[in-house]
């Protein structure tokens, strides 16, 4: 079987997109991605839309069909991919399958979400609707899972509270150089540590913001990629896995089984190990998640990710730059777009289009987390020409 290539990418401005709705955002990223790849809408055979909750947020469903019409990509096959916060990563997997199975020779993936017209309480509730009734009735939210897990991690591994803050500081610093990021401002550690408490011990700056935005990728067989581009990326490893729906039923609160399993699958498929990864995008919806993914993916031993962060290992000029895009933390987190935007960053790093954020990388990884580790997708890409 031939390999699956990525030949184009785009993302809209992330942030509060006043007066623009889900259909507008998806169409904007879709059109830009077609242009970036030099592909006609007519040539798109499959069109996947990663989106968690357009109906819940906006009362607009059927957005894949709307997008196909708005791009004039009919009669391309289209479908919505929902895997909550990891819908974007799941979209990469679906797009990969569509090409690898021979069903499509040109697949566009567009992820997006429109969220900022709702209050923080309402948006938090829409996201918390993924919880089990036994969790939901207690008012459990995703941020509260993060608070519970962060306290356990800090107490158990004797990690300093500051180490979590340093994840936020690093990712904000990276975001300054991302023109599409919601926040393009540095924050210092003191600001993070003195920001208002959201879910004790975590504070406002430990959390990503609520965001509108969209991102897109174009996938095709490697044989076809060469007709469109000299430089492209190839997906050499990809896998997804689930963990319990009920979060407290997991054996170890600091181990996300979905991260471990999907990572193993992606490593095995690509033939790479953690040491071969040159750049990674991790799902830092909450600072603590960056630690859990570093450990689950083998970038650090259990309970030691905080040390690598403290040592500057994950800085853009460190040994393993993590979240060079600014991460969800500064770039923002439009649910369905985030996993796609992770892919956009790794693609741009591999083909040398990351501008001031550019690092030296042949192999990149992204890890997209749905729920609180309920569903996880890990993707490994490498540069090709």
């Amino acid at each position: 079987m031939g390999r699956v290539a990525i030949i184009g990418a785009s993302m809209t401005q992330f942030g509060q997109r006043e007066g623009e709705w889900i259909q507008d955002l998806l169409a904007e990223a879709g059109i830009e991605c077609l242009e970036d790849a030099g592909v006609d809408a007519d040539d798109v055979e499959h069109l996947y839309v990663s989106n968690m909750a357009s109906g819940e947020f906006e009362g607009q469903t059927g957005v894949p069909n709307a997008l196909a019409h708005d791009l004039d990509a009919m009669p391309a096959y289209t479908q919505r991919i929902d895997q909550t916060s990891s819908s974007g990563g799941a979209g990469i997997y679906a797009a990969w399958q569509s090409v690898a199975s021979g069903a499509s020779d040109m697949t566009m993936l567009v992820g997006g979400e429109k969220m900022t017209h709702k209050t923080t309480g309402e948006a938090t509730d829409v996201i918390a609707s993924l919880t089990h009734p036994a969790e939901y009735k207690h008012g459990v939210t995703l941020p509260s899972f993060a608070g519970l897990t962060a306290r356990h991690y800090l107490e158990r591994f004797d990690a300093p509270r500051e180490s979590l803050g340093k994840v936020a500081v690093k990712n904000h610093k990276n975001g300054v150089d991302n023109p599409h990021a919601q926040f393009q401002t540095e924050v210092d550690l003191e600001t993070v540590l003195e920001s208002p408490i959201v879910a004790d011990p975590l504070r406002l700056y430990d959390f990503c913001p609520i965001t509108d935005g969209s991102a897109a990728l174009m996938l095709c067989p490697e044989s076809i990629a060469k007709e469109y581009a000299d430089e492209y990326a190839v997906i050499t490893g990809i896998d997804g896995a689930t963990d319990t729906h009920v979060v407290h039923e997991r054996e170890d609160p600091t181990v996300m089984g979905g991260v471990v399993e999907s990572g193993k699958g992606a490593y095995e498929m690509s033939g790479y190990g953690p040491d071969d990864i040159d750049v990674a995008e991790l799902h830092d919806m909450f600072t603590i998640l960056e630690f859990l993914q570093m450990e689950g993916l083998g970038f650090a031993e259990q309970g030691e990710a905080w040390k690598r962060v403290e040592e500057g290992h994950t800085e853009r000029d460190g040994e393993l730059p993590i979240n060079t895009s600014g991460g969800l933390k500064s770039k923002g987190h439009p649910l369905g777009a985030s996993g796609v935007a992770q892919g956009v960053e790794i693609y741009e790093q591999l083909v040398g289009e990351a501008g001031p954020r550019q690092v030296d990388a042949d192999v990149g990884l992204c890890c997209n987390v749905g729920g609180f580790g309920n569903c996880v997708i890990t993707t490994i890409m490498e540069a090709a020409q």
Partner: protein
Amino acid sequence: MTMEATRYDDGSITYPGHPRGPGGSEPVETIDLSEYTAEIVTWTTSTATPPGVREPNHLAIVEFDVEGESVRAIGQLTTGDVETGDEVRPVYVDELRDPGAGIREPESQAWDGYRFEPV
């Protein structure tokens, strides 16, 4: 009202119960956790709460020991003045959050349940 956990045919217990337990095992009986005490594994105080939820909302993951088999639960705390490792007991509450205020269909689930109170 009880706080029902489910025991499966491989001896494992979960709260809440599922149609199939870990490894696909079948449910065999229920156990009322409200008769036991538990230990706090971790806790948080959430200040950004969704519609219909008290603010702040104190939450904990706790662990029950049921005849040697441990089973965890998540739930509200009666107070934010706790530490990891504290012993708590379930106390019944009529309505843990306002059933109609959030996104969840009110009829689709129960809204009463148990908070955890330090012993």
